[in-house]
């Protein structure tokens, strides 16, 4: 490992933000709450700090400490090399059921130690294993929708990720510290301020009777249909940092083309220069300047050819100024033009404008919420204009020059 270690004080603050702000929707945990802490060994300082923060706040810890090469988000190469189809398909249902029933909150610490560790493993094996874990995602969304589960994600920077991003580990951590307000003695107060601003933007967007959205720029000419019973969401502690404001459109109304300026890590490999064309809501053409084959395989997974999310980040809000080679940060990137991104795959049911526990599976289908084992965010930091076509046919620019445009 390299010589640089983040200041323990920053790590303690990060842990406090995750436990006492991000969980519980900005309220933090309550005494007696059960928190599942998931993280790999290379994030040890943050993992242990999060456990201590839970105990200090009177909560209980369930731990899933992972060997660096065999995390939930990235199984080890050994596993894929040795596993039969039965092993790829295995889903430990009772274990996950018990775990989910037990927990009130989830903190996931992501810390890839080898971003290219799965290069050469057939992507279909990885997708097959992910597909087997679909029920878990469904259960989590359902429990979250019933207001019984909150979760957050934090990043612990590694040498390998810093190298991917073209930064020294020290500079990489400076981005993390700045983005999460860890350089401030009271980061939770700063996060409350950011949340208030995000809420303002969301409230404005939610006040507009939007029918369709038009994304225009030198690398995009894409139409989206918002759909019924939608709302814009942001903040609230899911993901630290998070500045984006997003929704899950009706997948059926997507038309046009879009190119992405940022590379994409998927199944341990890097896809560059991704470009998608949509017709009647489905991807009809997928191109990339690097690993186009992998992009196509990903899009070929069930329902991964449909849009699950559309997201806008205001350059004035985001404190992330550099590519970080990790979706958690890259989908919240600021810089001169903020970022716009879409995700293909799973829709967020939390974007339902109402009580989602009352919605049947048939109703989700009818509303155009997509269901998939994939949720892949693809990001652009180019200058784009987003115009809303309102129900009365009038148009309003909601985002331009990397900033929200309130009428």
């Amino acid at each position: 490992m390299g010589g640089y270690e983040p200041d323990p004080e920053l790590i303690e603050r990060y842990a406090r933000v995750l436990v006492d702000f991000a969980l519980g929707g900005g309220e933090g945990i309550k005494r007696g709450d059960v928190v599942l802490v998931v993280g790999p060994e290379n994030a040890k300082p943050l993992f242990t700090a999060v456990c201590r923060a839970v105990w200090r706040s009177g909560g209980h810890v369930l731990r899933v400490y992972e060997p660096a090469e065999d995390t939930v988000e990235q199984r080890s190469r050994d596993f894929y090399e040795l596993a039969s189809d039965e092993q790829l398909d295995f889903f430990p249902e009772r274990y996950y059921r018990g775990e989910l029933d037990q927990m009130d909150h989830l903190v996931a610490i992501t810390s890839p130690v080898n971003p290219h560790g799965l290069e050469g493993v057939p992507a279909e094996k990885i997708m097959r294993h992910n597909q087997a874990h679909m029920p878990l995602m469904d259960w989590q969304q359902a429990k979250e929708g019933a207001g019984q589960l909150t979760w957050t994600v934090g990043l612990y920077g590694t040498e390998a990720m810093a190298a991917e991003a073209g930064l020294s580990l020290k500079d990489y951590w400076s981005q993390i510290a700045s983005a999460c307000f860890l350089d401030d003695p009271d980061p939770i107060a700063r996060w409350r301020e950011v949340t208030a601003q995000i809420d303002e933007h969301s409230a404005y967007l939610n006040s507009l009777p939007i029918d369709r959205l038009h994304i225009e720029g030198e690398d995009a000419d894409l139409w989206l249909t918002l759909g019924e019973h939608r709302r814009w969401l942001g903040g609230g502690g899911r993901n630290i940092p998070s500045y984006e404001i997003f929704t899950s459109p009706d997948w059926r109304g997507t038309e046009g083309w879009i190119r992405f300026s940022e590379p994409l890590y998927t199944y341990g490999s890097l896809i560059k220069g991704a470009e998608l064309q949509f017709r009647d809501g489905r991807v009809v053409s997928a191109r990339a300047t690097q690993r186009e084959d992998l992009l196509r395989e990903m899009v070929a997974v069930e329902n991964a050819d449909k849009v699950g999310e559309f997201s806008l980040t205001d350059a004035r809000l985001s404190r992330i100024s550099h590519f970080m080679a990790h979706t958690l940060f890259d989908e919240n990137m600021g810089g001169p033009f903020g970022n716009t991104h879409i995700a293909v795959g799973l829709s967020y049911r939390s974007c339902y404008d109402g009580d989602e526990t009352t919605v049947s599976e048939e109703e989700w289908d009818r509303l155009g919420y997509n269901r998939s084992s994939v949720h892949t965010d693809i990001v652009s930091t180019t200058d784009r204009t987003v115009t809303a076509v309102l129900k009365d046919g009038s148009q309003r620019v909601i985002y331009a020059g990397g900033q929200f445009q309130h009428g």
Partner: protein
Amino acid sequence: MSFVPSGEYLERYARLLVDYALGEDGAGIARGDVVQVVGGESSKPLYAEICRAVWRSGGHVLHRFQPPEEPGLNLNRDFFELAGEAQLDFFPEPYSRGLLDQSDHLVALLSEADPHGLRDIDPTRIMRRRQAFQPAIGWQQAKEAEGRFTWTAALYGTEAMASEAGLSIEEYWEQIVAACYLDDPDLLDRWREVNQQIEAHCAALNVLPANRLHVEGEDADLWLTLGGKRKWLGGGGRNIPSFEVFTTPDWRGTQGWIRFTEPLYVFGSLIKGIELEFQDGRVTASRAGENEKLLREMIATPGADRVGEFSLTDARLSRITKFMASTLYDENVGGRYGNTHLALGLGLRHAYDGDPAALSEEEWERLGFNASSVHTDIVSTSDRTVTAVLKDGSEQIIYADGRFQHD
């Protein structure tokens, strides 16, 4: 990282645990079996080999990798320093239930990077925590008794453990390699041979209609009552290595005194020169040359003032020749006189001569099987003679000079 044993030895070690020690009678796991793998960071090279061995044999791994317990970063210690009473008493029931329901087997790796990490923690807090997890131990025993769950434990040597034992890390691993036959490419065959010899000893003991046992030597004059429906057992893969032959006496019949030559680790502290006196089955006096207070606190735990196990190791069978500062090895130590030991606390229900699943809690009590959250083995390597008093009043020496006497 410090000393890591050769990859060849680790691969054999993992195969021994997965393909021999788990399952019934050296059978190993079956395809599709689910194996919990429990091990700390310091055991990682072996932990990873075990996962690979499970995958190779067609099984599924449930990871239970443990966060660090090292000087300066000991999460276990942090918990005891921070936890309130509700946190000490918290038992994650649905989680523990799901984990056990999902599991067919458990491999536990013992590996300490910080043997004295809990030294100055109030032992009553540690015992209280253990007490809270009693239900899980009960469930596991019940599942095991039904023949639906097997487990094994093994040691991964660290610098800290070697130094506790007064050995270099190389010498420490030499003991592990010899004891487990890791230097033999056909180590599973060696273990089958050891098992046959252990079974022959058990069979010879089990045909004796023994009523009481008299343990005599310069440091013991102790009477035990075997009790009804008891058997002697050993081998079978619970614990690698295991050379001992043991049973669970009727706790109510223990009379006399016994001193122990080997030190004992309890809650991160070392107790030396232990001496116990029993009257009517209970400890009536306990002394120690070092940490006597801790010994007394341990004995004050419910059920810990009663005998839960009596065990004999034949010097000809055991390949362990040195003190290893770990119960797993020390209770199986060979050397000049083998070892004799007893455990305070929990009686082992598989020492019941019949179907343990058929017994009610009242019957266990009636038979004098002790219940406790504690099971503490205390060992002597001194020369002792064990005489069985048979039901007809005649006497027969079963163990002397470190050897069984029935051949």
